[in-house]
């Protein structure tokens, strides 16, 4: 019988613990992986540099004060005017309408799902909301134009085809799932024992929900509202399709308006020569949009972290 034992390879009487091939791989791989991760930083820097350099050139030609405080936006028609306020007010109106729809409905759905709904109902509703969140925005745009606008026109017959109200409502519907799922996450994180404590004192369900769970989850709920606001500001296709292309300072949601995002699409669809002032407006408006949403997102993260309750 042949006896065979596995022996450690020996080199000059010493055990060898090195395997060159694996060693190399373990040096190269982390570097490659780091490059993948660093790409996100590069992307951010790319966005910032792009926006800043082109915006800077734009402000060489258009005084920044005229841009920020001007009340007329007509960059494509002479005499040109580059006041961003009409676009801002249009964006703001859409956002406010959307939040008026999304925050109460989203929060109420979250309370229902987390505090009231039996398991079986929750199992049905949550996937539906996920589907709602996955519907492309262009589809919502069609929905606004073909169903919501005619519906509103039965109440306000004088309203135009393109209007802020319909677009705002549909943007709101689009954001409901986001508000709902983020708020519900925050409410589910509230420990069972707090609810028990309140029930044991004789609280009813709505008292537990509104006086214990919602306050305890407030940071998450506020963060979800801020994110909703930011999402509505950045939403593009719904407003491009349904809100119109007439930048104006108005408080009337039944009128056609234009948002910052819709303006960017409008210009990029036309054959504006690049290098021109008109082309520069894309970047100035894009920068404005980026700065606002960026600050809101930072705010949301800050709120969620800073005011996180310790239960």
């Amino acid at each position, binding site marked *: 019988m042949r006896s065979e034992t596995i022996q450690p390879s020996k080199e000059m009487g010493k055990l060898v613990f090195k395997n060159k091939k694996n060693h190399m791989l373990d040096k190269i791989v982390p570097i490659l992986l780091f490059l993948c991760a660093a790409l996100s*930083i590069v992307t951010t820097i790319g966005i910032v540099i792009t926006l800043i350099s082109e915006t800077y050139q734009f402000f060489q030609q258009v005084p920044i004060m005229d841009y920020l405080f001007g009340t007329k936006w007509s960059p494509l028609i002479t005499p040109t005017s580059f006041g961003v306020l009409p676009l801002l007010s249009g964006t703001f109106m859409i956002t406010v309408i959307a939040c008026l729809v999304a925050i109460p409905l989203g929060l109420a759905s979250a309370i229902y799902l987390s505090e009231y709904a039996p398991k079986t109902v929750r199992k049905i509703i949550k996937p539906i909301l996920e589907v709602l969140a*996955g519907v492309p925005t262009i589809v919502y745009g069609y929905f606004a134009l073909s169903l919501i606008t005619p519906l509103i026109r039965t109440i306000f017959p004088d309203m135009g085809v393109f209007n802020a109200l319909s677009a705002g409502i549909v943007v709101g519907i689009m954001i409901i799932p986001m508000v709902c799922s983020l708020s519900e996450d925050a409410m589910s994180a509230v420990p069972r024992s707090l609810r028990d404590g309140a029930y044991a004192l004789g609280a*009813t369900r709505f008292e537990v929900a509104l006086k214990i769970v919602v306050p305890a989850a407030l940071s998450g709920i506020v963060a979800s509202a801020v994110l909703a606001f930011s999402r509505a*500001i950045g939403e593009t296709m719904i407003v491009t399709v349904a809100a119109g292309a007439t930048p104006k300072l108005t408080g009337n949601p039944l009128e056609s308006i234009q948002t910052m995002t819709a303006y960017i699409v409008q210009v990029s669809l036309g054959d504006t020569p690049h290098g021109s002032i008109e082309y520069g407006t894309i970047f100035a408006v*894009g920068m404005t949009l980026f700065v606002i949403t960026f600050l809101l997102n930072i705010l949301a993260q800050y709120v969620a972290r800073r005011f996180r309750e310790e239960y």
Partner: protein
Amino acid sequence: MSLLEEDTGRKQIAQRRRMDFILHILFVICTSIGVLALMALMVDIIMDGIMRFAPDLFTNYPSRRASQAGMKSAIVGSLYMLLIMAPLSFILGVGAAIFLEEYAKKNRLTRLIQLNISTLAGVPSIVYGILGLTLFVRGLALERSLLSGALTMTLLVLPIIIVSAQEAIRAVPKARRDASFALGATKWQTVSRSVMPSALPGVLTGVILALSRAIGETAPLVMIGGLTYVAFLPESILDSFTVMPIQIYNWISRPNEAFHELAAAGIIVLLIMLLLMNFAAILLRNKYQKNV
């Protein structure tokens, strides 16, 4: 002692119960609005589009005449876009996730990258369009090509993929890593042979969901593609292109009602494609839940 309250106490409780009942109803109504909206949307689109949901839609190129128009080039464009994006975003996204979960030290740079990723996820998609326009279309002179579009969309979905892949990797029990290390495996052997196989279904679920978001994304591609009248199939990645959402947008923005029906039919195609992708993701997720 008595459990039966005097009249005032009973009244107070009856009142609170009524409040609870009213709010319960209110919450149910609010929740149903979301559900009803989805149903209304589906019904609206199917009613409008079902007549045009016919073979012509798949075989014809866009046309000025609504009766002859189809979305062949857009469907093919979307599929090509997916084919380019899927491997790119998978490799880059999963690579970043592995780095952050397995290799990165808990230092400031890591935190910065992590914070940066979650911030990028919140940047409006149109801003990616601006980036793509400057960087790929002009900067790298790739023009308004399929490649420009795919690269832009890759950047857009990366944050989503990274975050979901990180979650999947984090869900792999530490014991599996230890077992591998204890057998003398190196870090990369452990990651590639022990951690990733366990995490893969979860990672793929995230990738598919992110890609399904990209398939429906319109705004950045409108900026990159611009061109919406594409009556040919792209033959190389540097050819100009169109995709389904752009074609749909084009049809929606025409005043002629007949084009709106086409748009609705196009939406049906788009939604079916999304549904299939989501279904695949759910299947994977179920498999995943069984494994871990």
